[in-house]
């Protein structure tokens, strides 16, 4: 289109370059711009697409779950529930036994896994340095966090079958299975927190002649406490919704069992699953309007709502603890 660039007579040794050749054509620029806009739209679309299931899950659980969620549902177990008939208390059975079971089994898992997890992290950060063993353990902790929950259940089941006796089912067995899933999370979060404790604190304490054990318990762990607490709460929130491992270790009963160490126990997720698999309740032909055939599904939704609320509250607490009590960075 254009003529040669004017070459000044002084620098005629310089090669004459057609700079216009490098100018992007208008269609090329437009294509780049179009691509940019298209990708932006796709990326925003991806986000919107991901929001649909989240909103749908939360919304349907809320709508369906609120229908049968009342005090009677929370304060009764499933004894005396026959088909879709009303119980003498005027309700349709409830989740008291499942709440008790969930709390006890999760508490058991906490008692096992938080000390082990924290001490393992202390070993990795405070004692082992970067030794080969420590690196192996670090890698295996990562790998362990990917163990399928059902394998954890099979492990606890096999262990108790061999050590206690075949066919053992108890809440504690469920705790063992859950702690297998919980330990890696606790180790990882504690490790992260111990890493950001400033070395000055350790050195100051050691220089004062304090033993290493006291330095760790009184200075390092105390500084990292908020992170450890919030990490543990998030770990609890993760395992509290586990179903598969409890299906085979803790069993399922309709009455309340408060003894963690003997007898089967029901937890909320297992309750949801069991009600879901019942599908329909029987109603005799002469039953009045008080008999609801679809009651198992309604119970499943209500229990699911309670479970979601518990999990979200735990998450919120964990995050607030982490934020409010976070060590100040300089």
């Amino acid at each position: 289109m254009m003529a040669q660039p004017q070459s000044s007579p002084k620098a005629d040794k310089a090669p004459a370059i057609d700079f216009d050749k490098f100018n992007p054509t208008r269609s090329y620029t437009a294509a780049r711009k179009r691509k940019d806009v298209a990708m932006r739209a796709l990326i925003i679309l991806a986000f919107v697409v991901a929001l649909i299931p989240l909103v749908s899950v939360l919304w349907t659980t809320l709508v369906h779950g609120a229908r049968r969620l009342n005090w009677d549902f929370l304060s009764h177990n499933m004894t005396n529930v026959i088909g879709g008939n009303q119980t003498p208390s005027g309700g349709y059975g409830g989740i008291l036994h499942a709440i008790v079971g969930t709390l006890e089994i999760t508490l058991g898992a906490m008692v096992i896994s938080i000390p082990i997890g924290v001490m393992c992290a202390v070993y990795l950060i405070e004692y082992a340095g970067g030794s080969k063993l420590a690196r192996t353990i670090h890698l295996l902790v990562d790998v362990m966090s990917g163990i399928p929950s059902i394998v954890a259940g099979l492990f606890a089941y096999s262990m108790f079958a061999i050590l206690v006796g075949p066919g053992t089912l108890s809440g504690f067995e469920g705790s063992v299975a859950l702690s297998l899933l919980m330990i890696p999370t606790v180790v990882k979060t504690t490790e992260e927190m111990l890493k950001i404790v400033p070395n000055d604190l350790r050195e100051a304490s050691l220089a004062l002649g304090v033993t290493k054990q006291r330095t760790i318990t009184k200075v390092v762990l105390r500084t990292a406490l908020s992170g450890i607490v919030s990490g543990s709460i998030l770990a609890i929130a993760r395992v509290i919704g586990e179903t598969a491992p409890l299906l085979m270790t803790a069993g399922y009963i309709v009455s309340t069992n408060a003894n963690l160490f003997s007898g089967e126990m029901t937890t909320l997720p297992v309750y949801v699953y069991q009600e879901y698999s019942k599908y329909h309740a029987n109603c005799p032909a002469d039953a009045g309007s008080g008999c609801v055939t679809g009651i198992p599904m309604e119970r499943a939704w209500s229990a699911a709502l309670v479970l979601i609320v518990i999990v979200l509250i735990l998450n919120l607490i964990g995050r607030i603890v982490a934020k409010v009590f976070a060590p100040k960075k300089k």
Partner: protein
Amino acid sequence: MSPMTSASKPSSSSASSLTKPVSGEKADRVFRAVAYACGILILVVLAAVALFLLFRAWPLIGGDQRTNGEVIANFTGGRATNFWGYVGPLLFGTVLVAALALVIAFFVSIGIALFISHYAPKRLAAALSYIVDILAAIPSVIYGLWGGLVLVPAIYPFWNWVAEHLGWIPLFAGPAANPPRTVATVALVLAIMILPIITSITRDIFLQTPKLLEEAALGLGATKWEMIRLSVLPFARSGIVSASMLGLGRALGETMAVLMILSPGLKYSFHLLQASQNQTIAANIAAQYPEADSIGVSVLIGTGLVLFVITFLVNLLARRITEKASK
């Protein structure tokens, strides 16, 4: 100031209180031992998982093969009589469902991660990260419930449309099952479940991209997408790979959503839209377990061992990739 300098030879009573401080070395040594023990315990536990499962599954290998065959024939309706014939279709189903879930989740989660890290305004980004974390926190049984009662009826028209218009692709061969308790629906639910894992890891890595690289690209006149393609994605490549592997590992082991949605079958089948084609190992264990006798449980634990080994390898590979990249 220090008592040690003031007297070279202090009296015996003060010496004992000085050289032996309250609960000094002993507590130190005990604490150290406990820490070491907890570290080693991780190794022991992982070994114990493999050993106990192997021990419990032993009748499968060392026991009477004829009774094993009978039990397996009972499980499969006579389709298979040995362990590998049984676990083969299950393994196929597990990998098929997980791989499909990964394919669906991969692009969406990278899109979300990019949106959070590079497109959304700062304040919005924090809220969006939180929303993604909520997705991760919802228990799998609730996804199963939602999938079984809400998604399955809602998605039938779509699968039906796919079967009618894309039915010439063998993958989508019709007729679409109604209700669609099929591999396609399950893969969709699993994709939603692994989405937050992949998103949160890739987001963190996208945020770590050196600012200089990004600004250099922009300074050369790149558009935003070109900047991402030239600087962010190459930088995050190994992270993306390992995040996908972790998501895959999660999808391989997912039980409840599959159990509650899928209508099971034991075929080597790619018909995603038809019911009773495939089943996964984890869901099969949970489904057969309540009715299984002693040898039946051994068979199921054997399949669990296979699942354990596979997820272990997938996770190990993922972590190896991350480790190599971070060096």
